């Protein structure tokens, strides 16, 4: 069982659901230490006071908000905590919304919720009721001295909690001028582009996509550990833009051949039954 990062209670109406919060995502990046090239020793960072040029112990560090150039309002950790809000162990689902109404752009980070002590029955009840009603619960969550807007919804048999972006953090599409072409796409072009989309249709398999860069870094480390020499990368020339209609036609022709592996399973059964439906990963043209 992964360790929980927060324990508390979700309420809806008079029902209390004790829960544990777990991270749903993880950093799989490869991390390096900063190292002094000359002797291979690790680099330590020291906080130095710009006035005294002396190292500053952590307890003497305050948070400064710059109100004018070089002028700071200092806040202690307690004072920052004052902004977090009260009821810190409680997530009250104040309202429910149709889960499908929330545009994906609002979802920020995801956490999994596990049932807390003595909370199994109420956990299951909330989960099953959200599945049945196709709703998501909206509430506030105070985590690490910060209050988040959160959505609670069922995901893969468990309850998931998403921190949500606030509306004023999102840029409105109206702020952009999308030029209108002198003539709208012809119905034949729409038709062909539609066919092209269909020919490239596949079901979403997250595991089909791998972080190829991570694998390359690991490979580099292994080769370095063996003492191998390394080569420079090649540069890819820019693509040319052919005539739109010609490009659509040519794409449709080629998608019938080489693109078979990404073909929609339902549409492509007659032609690609022998082929694997899994895409090769990390492949680049």
């Amino acid at each position, binding site marked *: 069982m992964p360790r929980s990062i927060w324990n508390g209670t979700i309420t809806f109406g008079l*029902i209390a659901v004790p829960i544990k919060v777990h991270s749903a995502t993880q950093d799989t990046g490869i991390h390096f230490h900063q190292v002094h090239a000359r002797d291979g020793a690790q680099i330590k960072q020291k906080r130095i006071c710009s006035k005294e040029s002396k190292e500053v112990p952590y307890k003497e560090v305050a948070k400064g908000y710059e109100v004018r150039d070089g002028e700071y309002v200092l806040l202690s950790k307690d004072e920052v905590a004052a902004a977090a809000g009260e009821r810190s162990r409680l997530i009250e689902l104040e309202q429910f919304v149709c889960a499908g109404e929330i545009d994906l752009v609002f979802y920020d980070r995801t956490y999994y919720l596990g049932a807390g002590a003595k909370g199994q029955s109420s956990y299951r009840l909330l989960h099953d009721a959200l599945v049945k*009603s196709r709703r998501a619960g909206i509430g506030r969550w105070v985590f690490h001295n910060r209050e988040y807007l959160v959505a609670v919804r069922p995901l893969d048999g468990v309850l998931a909690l998403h921190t949500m972006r606030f509306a004023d953090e999102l*840029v409105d599409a109206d702020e952009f001028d999308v030029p209108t072409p002198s003539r709208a796409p012809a119905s034949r072009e729409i038709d062909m582009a539609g066919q092209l989309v269909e020919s490239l249709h596949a079901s979403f398999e997250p595991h089909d996509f791998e972080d190829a860069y991570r694998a390359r870094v690991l490979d580099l480390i292994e080769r*370095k550990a063996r003492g191998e020499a390394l080569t420079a990368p090649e540069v890819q020339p820019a693509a040319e833009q052919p005539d739109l209609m010609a490009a659509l036609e040519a794409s449709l022709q080629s998608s019938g051949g080489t693109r078979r592996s990404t073909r929609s399973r339902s549409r492509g059964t007659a032609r690609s039954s022998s082929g694997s439906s899994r895409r090769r990963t990390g492949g680049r043209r």
Partner: protein
Amino acid sequence: MARSLWTGSLSFGLVNVPVALFTAVRDLDLHFHQIHEKDGAAIEVHRFCSEEDVEVPYEEITHGYECDDGSQVIVTDLELEAIEPRKTRTIDIEQFVDLADVDPIHFDHPYFLLPAADDDGASRAYRLLLEVMSQSDRAALGRFVMRAKEYLAIVRAGDGVLTLTTMLFADEVRSTSEIDAATQKAHKPTPKQLNAAVAVIEELTCEWDPAQHRDRYRERLEAVIERKRKGETIKAPESGKPPSPAPDLMEALERTLEELKTSGENTNRQPQEVK
């Protein structure tokens, strides 16, 4: 208008649509500097060699990877550059998927994609893709390279504009298998309980109205800064005690429903603590 973060072309099949990428999120967070409390001076971070205890200039710093056996492999900037993804200028659409199949857990950062070139052909190709994608409710999955990092991205039709969202890779999403979701039979709600819970949820349902939710944390932090500036002292609030789970779920559900019904049109109903 904001500046674009990346320009290139969206390519699917042999069709290339010149596009520019703009962030869809603005950073409204308040940012702090580290300050030496005693004298109010800004704190600078300097790098020191842990062996020699002397400051190390930036040029003398390289990267060390610690292996499982504790040994260290040194990797230089040049070597890391050599394995950077090829700096292509295309978002290569590899497949189209049903948007409904992509769970928000995979979503990372949202952007807008706009036609890059100011020519009619580019604008027409853009419009074509936008129309086809809004009609089919499909989203395009592809990869692109921005700032030496390769991203998996999903492109979909928004409100008259294409949007792109970078996605987490599958290994960045944890499995739910070890989460205690109370799946034992004993915890399954009775049909009566489930119906009552659904009724409570429906009573509390309203339309998703994102503008109604303000960032109270940011507002309070701004207020704290303002009060501090005037020389006030600020105390952290005490945290309230969370309610304990109801011994009788059905009773709690019924009482909730009763309260919700008697409170009627009162829009500001506050659920009460369970004793």
